[in-house]
């Protein structure tokens, strides 16, 4: 019976290449927004794919045909956690290069728009880790609730609540910052 699993090493490698090409940008984006600079994001991306390669066969067997992106992002998530633990550092604000914010704007809203986006990015960096990650997965990677739940090891319901609270807290931070009060230090973190 054909269970969709690779029959030999060559097929396994071909499947891994497909996975790598399909999700390199996802892993890099996630890594960048987690660590806040390109140098460490490259390291994290490289380590993620090497780790994924080591466990790919088992992941395919256990995935039961489900997409492997949440598994891949979970690897990056775990490596990023080790990265901070080993180096005892906190994530940097993810605006190393403001020119990255390259979404189209009308001429008159260009400056104001960029400030708003920069303020949102700074707010994201203020969020608790789980909320920040959920937002990165949803908005940078376009993952749905189910994918995010699998990547974070939570239920779909808990993930929906997590996202809702993350957006609400971020809105509060951005509002307070733009009002000149500075970011909330004890925002709703549950």
């Amino acid at each position, binding site marked *: 019976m054909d269970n969709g699993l690779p029959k030999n090493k060559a097929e396994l490698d071909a499947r891994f290449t497909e996975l790598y090409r399909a999700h*390199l940008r996802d892993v890099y984006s996630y890594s960048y927004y987690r660590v806040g600079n390109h140098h460490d994001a490259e390291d994290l991306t490289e380590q993620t794919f090497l780790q994924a390669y080591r466990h790919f066969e088992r992941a395919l067997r256990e995935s039961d045909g489900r997409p492997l992106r949440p598994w891949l992002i979970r690897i990056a998530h775990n490596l990023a956690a080790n990265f901070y633990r080993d180096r005892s550092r906190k994530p940097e604000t993810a605006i190393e290069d403001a020119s990255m914010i390259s979404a189209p704007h009308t001429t008159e809203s260009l400056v104001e728009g960029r400030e708003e986006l920069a303020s949102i*990015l700074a707010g994201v960096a203020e969020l608790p880790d789980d909320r920040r990650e959920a937002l990165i997965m949803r908005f940078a990677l376009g993952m749905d609730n189910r994918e995010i739940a699998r990547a974070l090891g939570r239920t779909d319901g808990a993930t929906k609540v997590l996202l809702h609270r993350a*957006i609400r807290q971020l809105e509060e931070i951005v509002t307070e910052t733009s009002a000149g009060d500075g970011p909330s230090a004890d925002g709703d973190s549950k």
Partner: protein
Amino acid sequence: MSADATDFEALLREALAPIDPPADLARRLEVTLVNLTELAQEELESWELSAMRDPRNWVRPAAAALLGASAGTALVLVRVRARHRARKQQTGNLLELAERTMHDIADEARRVLPGA
């Protein structure tokens, strides 16, 4: 959902736009992955089965089999080999060269392999 909330989510989507990886990262990763699959294969193929009669020859094929199972280990070897080649051209002292190569292996293993 209110219009304000929709607007905020649109801004959030814009702020967290996906980031394209640098071209050299994609190239480097592809090369590493190709090396991983080819390296272990080459090590195994280069040894005739007959050579296995001599126990002194068991070490290399065993190492190659391990490489096939461990991408991190392969990466260590690739990096250490590159440094070893560079050093070999610079030094005439074999003992010093061997010592430095052992240090490289330990350093790379610590860097690449989790928990090493």
